[in-house]
């Protein structure tokens, strides 16, 4: 009987051929695999958010195996001695068990929290990149809006997750949230009672927040992230201007294999950094906060950093209470001061960024599609507006932690509050002005190099005794000695080694991995060398 031989090298092709026969996947897959992505370090910032979201899903799933979303009172009897015998909610007790009695539970909880902070900060940093390079312009306004929504849904995910352990800190936060909801005119009390099923805290809030935190919000995030990435695929990634790059092409690397390999490596790095932080830095030590009781509140009770700007706006806002007596009918009506900094302000901060692409298009009358990015210096007004927004947010966020700053740096808390109030009015316009001037200065320097050339470091003395530096023009010059190159929207070489006139810049991150090239010697001058010391005579008299 003849033994049948299996040709191993032919197996992948046969399997793939068989799959294609059945699913007709080759043509669409080829499109995807051959997709070209432009390469720049700043294009990887959004990936940090994507990868930390994956870490969030993995660690969060682990946590659900042990967490119990219940406000039933139990008596703690776990291994953390300083709380043994204390009455607490089952939610808090299970969070403590998760931290102290489940193997690997604490690092999982800490990784989950650090991954959440990474997710939110990566979203913000990615958003800065999109904003300052003008990547939100037509046709990508939709993706900009989805990105803004991702931030706010991530904000909700963070807040619900922060509340779940039911420790004293999260309970304080939840109480503030209920106060914020109550402050909304007319519908406030209805909103609050429907969310808490009656008075705060009620008995159902943990169950509701739990299902929101593990199903509804991650589902919404997942859906929006899919659309976000799908749109990047469909509309193609933006690219920086450069040789061979136009509005109508994409220059970069294929999705498979190089881009995927790099992304896989980057995912491992993100995972590694989050795991390191989860193992090295303690985050949210719920066992120190204790169980939530209405009468328990700690100094320095802050929300996570991405909510801190709302805490800051509340601390800075004056106590302006608006009273209507309704012509003597009933008890009148009061709008509490907390309504303005915690409902109206975030409302504006949600809507304004989403509308920004359209506002800018309307003001600049630029309704064309753009696939090439802009350098921040080339659009000083937008860059300055962005700096203004960052300054506004930074003052609010710092004010959210102003008691810690006041305590640690021995500043009066009242002075911090007033500094925040004045800073909130002064810092944004100042940031606008300074950024605008810096942008103009950078533009001017680019133009100067294009007109006069690169500084060579060679100083020439003119016959009349003046000194001047020799400039190397980048291109043939006209009769005035001015370069003929136009600005191309990309980096202008400003050093001789960029032009190849010197050796390349010395490579290496912390120490040089190559020898520095020898300095060139001016022709016509013999190199000066030190005379041997033996021939030198010492003058003794």
């Amino acid at each position: 009987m003849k033994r049948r031989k299996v040709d191993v090298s032919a197996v992948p092709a046969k399997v793939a051929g068989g799959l294609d026969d059945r699913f007709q996947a080759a043509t669409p897959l080829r499109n995807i695999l051959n997709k070209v992505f432009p390469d720049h370090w700043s294009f990887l910032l959004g990936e940090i958010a994507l990868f930390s979201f994956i870490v969030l899903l993995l660690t969060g799933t682990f946590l659900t195996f042990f967490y119990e979303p219940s406000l039933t009172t139990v008596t703690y009897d776990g291994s953390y001695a300083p709380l043994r015998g204390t009455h607490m909610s089952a939610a808090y007790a299970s969070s403590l068990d998760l931290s102290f009695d489940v193997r690997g539970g604490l690092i999982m909880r800490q990784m989950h929290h650090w991954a959440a902070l990474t997710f939110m900060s990566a979203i913000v940093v990615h958003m800065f990149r999109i904003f300052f390079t003008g990547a939100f312009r037509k046709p990508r306004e939709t993706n900009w809006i989805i990105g803004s929504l991702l931030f706010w849904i991530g904000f909700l995910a963070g807040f619900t997750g922060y509340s779940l352990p039911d420790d004293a800190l999260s309970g304080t936060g939840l109480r503030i949230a209920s106060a914020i909801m109550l402050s909304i005119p007319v519908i406030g009390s209805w909103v609050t009672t429907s969310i808490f099923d009656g008075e705060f805290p009620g008995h159902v809030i943990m169950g509701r927040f739990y299902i929101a935190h593990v199903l509804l919000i991650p589902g919404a995030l997942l859906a929006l992230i899919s659309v976000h990435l799908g749109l990047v695929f469909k509309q193609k990634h933006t690219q920086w201007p450069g040789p061979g790059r136009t509005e109508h092409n994409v220059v970069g690397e294929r999705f498979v294999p190089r881009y995927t390999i790099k992304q896989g490596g980057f995912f491992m790095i993100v995972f590694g950094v989050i795991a390191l932080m989860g193992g090295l830095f303690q985050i949210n030590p719920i066992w120190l906060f204790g169980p939530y009781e209405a009468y328990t509140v700690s100094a320095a009770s802050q929300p996570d950093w991405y909510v801190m700007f709302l805490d800051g706006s509340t601390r800075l806002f004056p106590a302006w209470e608006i009273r209507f007596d309704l012509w003597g009918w009933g008890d009148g009506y009061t709008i509490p001061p907390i309504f303005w900094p915690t409902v109206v302000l975030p409302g504006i901060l949600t809507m304004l960024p989403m509308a920004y692409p359209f506002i800018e298009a309307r003001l600049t009358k630029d309704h064309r599609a753009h696939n090439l990015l802009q350098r921040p210096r080339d659009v000083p007004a937008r860059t300055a507006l962005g700096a203004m927004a960052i300054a506004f947010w930074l003052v609010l966020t710092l004010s959210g932690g102003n008691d810690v700053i006041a305590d640690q740096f021995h500043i009066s808390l009242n002075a911090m509050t007033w500094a925040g109030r004045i800073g909130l009015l002064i810092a944004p316009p100042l940031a606008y002005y300074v950024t605008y001037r810096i942008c103009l200065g950078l533009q001017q320097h680019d133009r100067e190099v294009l007109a006069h050339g690169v500084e060579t470091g060679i100083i020439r003395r003119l016959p009349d005794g003046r000194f001047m530096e020799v400039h190397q023009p980048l291109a043939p010059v006209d009769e005035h000695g001015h370069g003929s190159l136009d600005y191309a929207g990309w980096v202008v070489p400003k050093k001789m080694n960029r032009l190849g006139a010197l050796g390349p810049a010395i490579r290496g991150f912390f120490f040089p991995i190559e020898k520095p090239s020898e300095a060139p010697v001016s022709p016509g001058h013999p190199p000066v060398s030190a005379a041997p010391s033996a021939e030198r005579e010492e003058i003794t008299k």
Partner: protein
Amino acid sequence: MTSDTPGGLLARLRRRRSQPRSRVRRRLGTVVRLTIALTLAGGVYTVFAPGLSADDTPQLSTAAQEGKALFDESCISCHGRNAQGVEGRGPSLIGVGAAAVEFQVSTGRMPMARQEAQAPRKPAMFNDDQTRQLAQYIQELGGGPQIPDGDLRAPEGDDEAIARGGNLFRINCSSCHAFGGGGGALSSGKYAPDLKEATDRQLYAAMLTGPQNMPVFGDNQLTPEQKKEIISYVQEALKQDKDPGGWGLGRFGPVTEGLAIFLVGIVALVFAALWIAGKS
């Protein structure tokens, strides 16, 4: 009975009184009666009055006399002669008790370097003996709360004492000193200090006397047992327990956590992005 009734002792007496006595006799009688009344009152007073040997300079024990010498040298400029206080500079110390003196002096808060929102903790100027002498002087001068002798921790073997102390700490102390005992800001430059360096006696004295801006937790608010449980929690759980989750980031809560994610996490990942992009 009417005044017209003749005869009888009463009538005779009335008749005699109605006659004018000589002026000298009248004066003399007044002086005698007054002297008798005064002697009687003074005698009764000397028998029943508390300060039989009341004196401007009370009899101080040796330790208190040493303390008075130290007081007259270092404290008198603000707290005045006999610790009666100086308007606008320092309060009267009558009745603050030895506990307050021991707290303020052993933590270096007194003597103050300058008048400011709150006296900060600094190296103590007096050693233990001198502190005790000062405390003894103020105690003998005006009385007041004293730190009990002996162990100021909850009894050994009471497993739930620390848990009860923790609960009391979170109710009474953490609103100013924060959940980790690291302290926090109060208004106008005042603050609740870090508890890191506080000893058992200092913690007890602080609760008993309410130094600086701290409220007094008298024995009717926190019993001595409860005070000892709080001390046990602070010294044995808050300070001794190593942070199980790694470096505690100063136990400031989300403020330093937010700082860490940007300074460590995002910086590391941006460098990783630069590195990966640089490799292509």
